[in-house]
Structure formats: C-alpha cells, structure tokens
C-alpha cells in the first residue's frame, strides 16, 4: 500500500512535467489546429540555455527567468519567420516542417554541446531529502513550480485583455479581427507562450532524465498522450491528462508492463484514445472536414 501511494505521488510529480509540455502543445493546437512536433526539442534547447547560464554562475532562479524570457522570444520569432510561411500550405507540409525543425534543433544542439549526458542540478535541495517520506525534494519542487505556472497561465487567459484576445483569435479568428484583435500577433504569442511553458517542463525534467539532446524524445510522447487524454482542445484537459499519464506510467511500470515497456504502454494508450475517445476527457467535438 505504502509503495502504491509512493508510485502515485511520484507519478503526479513527473506528471507535472508532462502537463506543462502538454499545455504547450494545446496552446498551439488551439490557435492553429496543429500539434507541434518540435515542442519537445524547443524545450530541450531552452534547458541547455539554462544549463549554460547556471554553469556560468548565474543564480538558478535568475537563469530560470532568463530562460523563460528567451524561450518566449524564440517561440515568437519562430512563428513569425518560419511557420508564417506555411500558414496556407497543406497540412502534411506543415507537419514536415515541424519535424524538420525538430531534427534541426536536435542536431544543432548535438553539434554544439555533444551527446553525452550532463548533470543538471535540482534547485530544491533546500527542501530536504524527502517530504514526509513520499516525495523527493525535487519531485515536490516540480509539483510546486508546475502548479504555479499553470495558475499563472489560467489567470492570464481568464483575466487579461491579451489573454481574452488570444482565446478569441483561437475560436474565431475572423470575428477577432473585426473587434480589432491582431490575429497574426496572437498566433505568434501562442507559439511564444508554448515555447515558454515547454521550457519549464524541460528545465524541471532535466535533473531526472539528465541533460542530453534526446532528453525530450520520450517526454514528448507522454505529453502527446496527456494532451490527447485531456482532449487536445482543452488547456485544463492537458493539465489533468498530463498528471494522469504520469500516474498511469508509474503504476504501469511498477505493476503492469515493467519499466522497460513504458513507452509501448503509452503508445497503446495513445492509440486507444485516438480510436475510442478522440475528444478525450474535456475536449469539445472537433469538426472533421472530409
């Protein structure tokens, strides 16, 4: 029983990482109906940035903030400069561009930093070894940070003028432009926010999976699963889905399929969701254009 609870709690913690990345995916899906395959690699690149900053003596939390700010800017310009060109291109072209972007980031980071695993310190050592025996201090820290980020994101969309405008641009771009919303800026902002939130997931997961150019490959799959489980159109769904997937992964690893088949398990989950309940738990019906 004790170990079962332990699995759940640590699942929730790692689920926080999936939830952030899933939220980043949803953010772009809402505005463009696209799943950004390069989201994980963007997060990975952000994590390297944080690593460089910390390595150069910048205090951890300051590095964290700078990383988020730069990720935001990079996301914004990626949309402006690159994705904008493919706005009217057929879907398969856009997918391929995103996969190309993913490959490009992965390779470039590999060239610059090499492929060996790097240690990434956890900023939560001060929390002590374990919190009441259930969570490692880093897991508690992940939970704390994700919760904060999620709350901020929700407040942004609920209470700010720009947040509301982004939602409007997502649900009805034409009407949004009729009320004076610059829809194209909103699209860029969507990418910017997604890159920023993704960066959170990268920086938080690095102490667990170690830092290397392929660190996000597995995590992005979990984030896919989380976003799909929550319903790819729903931000709240992405968070809940990400957390659930974290728990499910841990439980399946411990009791069902063994740790060496976790990815296969997640693949099965993804396929089941797509076939049985494509709208997920919270998603609205997506109208299929045939």
């Amino acid at each position, binding site marked *: 029983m004790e170990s079962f609870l332990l699995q759940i709690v640590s699942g929730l913690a790692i689920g926080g990482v999936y939830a952030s990345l899933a939220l980043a995916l949803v953010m772009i899906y809402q505005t463009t109906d696209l799943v950004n395959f390069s989201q994980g690699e963007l997060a990975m690149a952000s994590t390297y940035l944080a690593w460089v900053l910390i390595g150069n003596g910048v205090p951890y939390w300051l590095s964290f903030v700078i990383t988020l700010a730069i990720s935001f800017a990079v996301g914004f310009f990626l949309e402006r400069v690159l994705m904008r060109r493919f706005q009217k291109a057929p879907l398969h072209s856009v997918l391929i561009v995103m996969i190309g972007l993913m490959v490009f980031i992965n390779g470039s980071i590999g060239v610059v930093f090499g492929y060996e695993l790097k240690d990434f310190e956890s900023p939560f050592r001060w929390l002590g070894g374990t919190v009441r025996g259930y969570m490692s201090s880093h897991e508690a820290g992940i939970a704390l940070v994700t919760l904060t980020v999620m709350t901020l994101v929700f407040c942004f969309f609920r209470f700010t*003028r720009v947040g509301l405008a982004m939602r409007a641009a997502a649900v*009805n771009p034409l009407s949004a432009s009729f*009320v004076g919303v610059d829809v194209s800026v909103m699209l860029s902002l969507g990418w910017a926010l997604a890159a920023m939130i993704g960066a959170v997931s990268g920086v938080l997961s690095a102490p667990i999976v170690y830092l290397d150019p392929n660190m996000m490959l597995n995590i992005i799959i979990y984030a896919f699963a989380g976003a799909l489980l929550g319903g790819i159109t729903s931000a709240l769904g992405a968070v809940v889905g990400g957390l659930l997937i974290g728990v499910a992964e841990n439980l399946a690893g411990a009791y069902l399929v063994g740790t060496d088949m976790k990815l296969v398990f997640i693949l099965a989950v993804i396929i089941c969701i797509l076939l049985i309940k494509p709208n997920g738990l919270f998603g609205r019906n997506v109208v299929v254009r045939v």
Partner: protein
Amino acid sequence: MSALLELQGVKAWYGAVQALRAIDLVVEEGGVTTLIGANGAGKTTTLRAIYNVLVRREGSISFNGRSILGMSANDIVRLGIGHVPDGRGTFSRLSVEQNLQLGGHVLRSRKAVQEGMRRIYGLFPILQERRLQQAGTLSGGEQQMLAIGRALMPRPKLILLDEPSFGLAPLIVTGIFDTLRQIRHQEGVSVLLVEQNVNLALALADQACLIESGRVVKNCSAETMRNDDTVKHVYLGI
C-alpha cells in the same frame, strides 16, 4: 454633411473570381446608407472589401478623407469602423460579458471598457441579464443584439451591418430595427446597412445603392429608390 466613407471604383476578387466590378458609394457623416440587391450581387463582398477580409481588392476606399486601402481589419477597427458581420460572428464559447470586453479590445483603459459595457447594457437590457451565459446559448435575436453591442463598444463613427434580420422572426426584426433607429440618434453613429428586407432597409436609410452583379447600378436617396418602378417590382414585390 460630409462624406465619412467613400468608395470609388472598387473591384474585388475571391481568388481568381471577380465579385465586385465597380462599386461607388458614400456614407455621409451621421447618415445611413443601405445596399440592396439580389443574393450574390456583391453586398456582403462590399463590406468585406471595406474591411479587407477574405477578398483582394482594388480601387479607392477612404474613411474620414484618409485612404484605408492598405490597412488590415484590426487597424480599421481602431479608426472607428465597427463591423457586425453576416452570421453575427459572436464568440459562441465565450460569455456575453467577455464578448463585450472583446468588443472593447481597442480601448486602452479598463474604465473605458466598463463604461462601454454599461452603455451597451443600457441599449440592450436583456444582455445584462444574460451576461454570464455563453453567447452560443442565446437566441438569434439576442445574438444579433450582442453582435451590434460588441461593434458599438469602442464608440465607432461608422458601423457596417450585414443582414441584421437574417434568420430572425419578423417581430424580432422590427425590434432590432427600432433599436437601430434609437442607436443612430443616441450614439450619433453612421451606418452602412446590407439588408435583404428592402422595405425595412429603405425605411431606415437616407441613401440607397442598388447592386447588380458586382456593380452599383443606381445610387440615390432612399426615398427615390422606394419610388423607382423597377425596384418596386423586383425588390419590394409591389
């Protein structure tokens, strides 16, 4: 009175298909101009051409004496042109209040938005009752009021109204047109009205343009238009 909005020789295309061939029209400061014509004549397209959405256009379009040809829709809103699009275009998954807040997107201060909302609730008390409801759950008439209210939020000088009567029961349509008359005087706003219901449109407007196949074929006062034999026969069914 001086011309607030002026279109001269406007042409427009959807892709390779030309929808407007020669549109000339004027909306006077404080005036109401209506566009009438059959389905597919180019009425809605004219509004889209003014707003620079979905079409490619040529010709001259000026607002307050200033060309707005190269401007994007969101900049045009800032100049003071509101748009109530065909099909109303309310954000159905957002609440009534949020729809109005979005209407005030171009307003800089929170206070101005609050003030605008109070104004709109004064015009349409029903919207205040329903302010927390999702816009998609409103009745057709209420959605039309919301769309008009949203467009009026930033106190535009001109609103483009696309078929406010569309899909509504006759009684509700009459109500909407009464409100439009009231808004015109209360807000001092000029109106460019596209309307299928020619009778109602001509009763509200002072100027009228008849469009056929993307061309303005007759441009005169609403009064003259009402008495024109062809118009009477074809559009008014008299």
